[in-house]
């Protein structure tokens, strides 16, 4: 008993001493929280930026877009990140004005589990029909009409959607609400909705996993997940009537043609233009216009400028769509407005 007491005493003492020795280094830590979608590109950026400026390090944790919005409002972090823009209601709760800084964009793709993994084509009608539970079989005439020659089996469609709230769902439902009045009325747009049909998978990896395991399943995931998991994904008909393959280029094209308001709280789903992929969405960094801490604020602004110039060049390699050039200019101007 005494041996144990001595040892545990020493152990605890070590931990406390370890912990209390605050690193007196010149390094400044800036904390950020929010969306999971941009986590990989942000961690790449922060890693690269540490080589540019070693006096500051950025600690970003993905706790969800809602979490990001809440924490920046509560000022427990220095910046937030969200896959969906903050609502007026939520912005009003913040103690100061919060700026939306778009960084990169991604897309929701339609992925499925069929023998042979063909590249299918879908349009507004078929997607809504499937996710409303009205189109129940793969060989339904509506799907067959778009995919002549694709061997569509006589099999029940198993719909897989997200069970957790997420920006991915927000983009998906935003698109469906735009193209289908029925969807808008019955289900609506949100990070989490009352799904008319289907199973719920947790996270992109949950949906991807479930679609992969279930023959005849269909679901929506972020482009990156479909690529990394080597899953087939469909071409979708956009508002110009063209079937577009989801890719970094077609996402950037959607941003180039969409209407971008002054506060950058935009939606690029169902964007006009021949090359636009219709189910795309951006992600934002949330920062206060009036920074509390001058040192941190300065470093944050320097990083944002770097990200919007050098950082954007790294986006493509990780399958993220960079902002189109003129949008980038507008955003950089906005970053200049951040006051210390």
């Amino acid at each position, binding site marked *: 008993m005494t041996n144990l007491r001595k040892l545990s005493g020493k152990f605890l003492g070590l931990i406390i001493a370890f912990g209390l020795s605050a690193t007196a280094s010149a390094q400044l830590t800036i904390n950020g929280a929010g969306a999971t979608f941009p986590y990989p590109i942000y961690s790449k950026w922060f890693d690269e930026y540490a080589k540019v400026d070693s006096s500051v390090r950025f600690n970003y944790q993905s*706790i*969800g*877009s*809602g*979490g990001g*919005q809440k924490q920046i409002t509560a000022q427990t972090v220095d910046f937030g990140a969200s896959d*969906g823009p*903050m*609502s007026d*209601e*939520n912005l009003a709760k913040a103690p100061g004005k919060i700026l939306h800084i778009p960084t990169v964009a991604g897309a929701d793709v339609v992925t499925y589990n069929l023998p042979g993994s063909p590249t299918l084509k879908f349009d507004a009608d078929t997607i809504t029909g499937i996710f409303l539970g009205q189109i129940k079989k793969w060989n339904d005439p509506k799907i067959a009409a778009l995919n002549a020659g694709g061997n569509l089996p006589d099999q*029940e469609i*198993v719909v897989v959607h997200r*069970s*957790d*709230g*997420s920006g991915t769902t927000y983009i998906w439902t935003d698109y469906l609400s735009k193209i289908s009045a029925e969807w808008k009325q019955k*289900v*609506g*747009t*949100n*990070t*989490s*909705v*009352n*799904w008319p049909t*289907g*199973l*719920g*998978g*947790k996270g992109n*990896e*949950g949906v991807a*996993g*479930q679609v992969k*395991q*279930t023959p005849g399943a269909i679901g929506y995931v972020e482009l990156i997940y479909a690529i990394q998991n080597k899953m087939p994904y469909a071409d979708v008909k956009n508002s110009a009537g063209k079937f577009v393959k989801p890719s970094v280029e077609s996402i950037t094209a959607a941003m180039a043609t969409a209407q971008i308001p002054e506060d950058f709280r935009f939606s690029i789903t169902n964007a006009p233009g021949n090359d636009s992929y219709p189910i795309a969405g951006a992600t934002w960094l949330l920062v206060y216009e009036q920074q509390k801490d001058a040192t941190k604020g300065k470093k944050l602004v320097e990083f944002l400028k770097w990200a919007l110039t050098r950082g954007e060049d790294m986006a493509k390699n990780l399958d993220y769509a960079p902002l189109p050039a003129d949008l980038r200019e507008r955003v950089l101007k906005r970053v200049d407005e951040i006051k210390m």
Partner: protein
Amino acid sequence: MPIAVAPERPAVRSTIDRMARPSGLGDKVFKWFTLAMALAVVALVFLVGWQLARGSSLAIRRFGFHFLATSTWDPVAEQFGALPFIYGTAVSSLIALIIAVPLSIATAVYLTELAPLWIRQPIVSLIEMLAAIPSVILGLWGIFVMIPWLRDHPFPFLKEIFGWTPFFSGPIYGVSMLAGGIIIAVMILPIITSVSREILRSVPNLQREAAYALGATRWEVTRIAVLSYAKKGLFGAVILGLGRALGETMAVTMVIGNTPQIRASLFAPGYTLASVIANEFTEATTDVYLQALFEIGLVLFGITILANLLAQLLLKTMGSTIKSGAVQ
């Protein structure tokens, strides 16, 4: 609760109370110190209850008791009802207990009475180590290994034999209420087994020896001398498992299908109270939505209290059949 001496406990304790020297400072300080520590749980339960109530006040006022009776969960229309989640929590926990309790106690018996001595501690350490598996990892294993296996082997088998009952009817997706119950069972096995084993191990050998002396077989010794003596302690172990089962989130949410519905079939996907909180809490952007989730937490809190009350009731009926008289 004392084991097998329940009726006599007050007498035994008062003997000890009488025998103890008139309290010196050491005794007084120690008693108050331990009391303070024990009261921590009271402080904690008020803290949790208060935070949950405070966080859901708006939703409570808005939905009232309807919340417990409605089945809709619509964040867009801001209509929230907890019924399917209550059903899911109740059913999945029940399945988990039905599977885990007999297995765990039998294993504990094996480890204390039957296994060769050299193998005991390693297996126990192994089981305890597996209590540390992060829930999310178990969930991933569930979805990539367990679900496909379940969907291809036991489930169709169950459907063949019991398909005529409402419990095993309907299409088999793999993700299901049953899968949720099974994964919770896997999560609570370590705790029930470990604690049960400690309980059984602490049964005085005199009990066993007495039974052997009377000519009992091994099983009879276990049943009469060990299990009966340890009954209440084992029940305590089961309650610990129940607690974990009710509050389990990550692993369940990956294999249960996350569909808020009430279906008789165990093959149908379901949703639990803890899962919906874990799924939607970080992303809930509107006030009512967040408050509704807090209210779900409050409902779960209430259900935990109810479940424990029921368990205590069960214990009372068990208590009246316990043979008292530990051989000292």
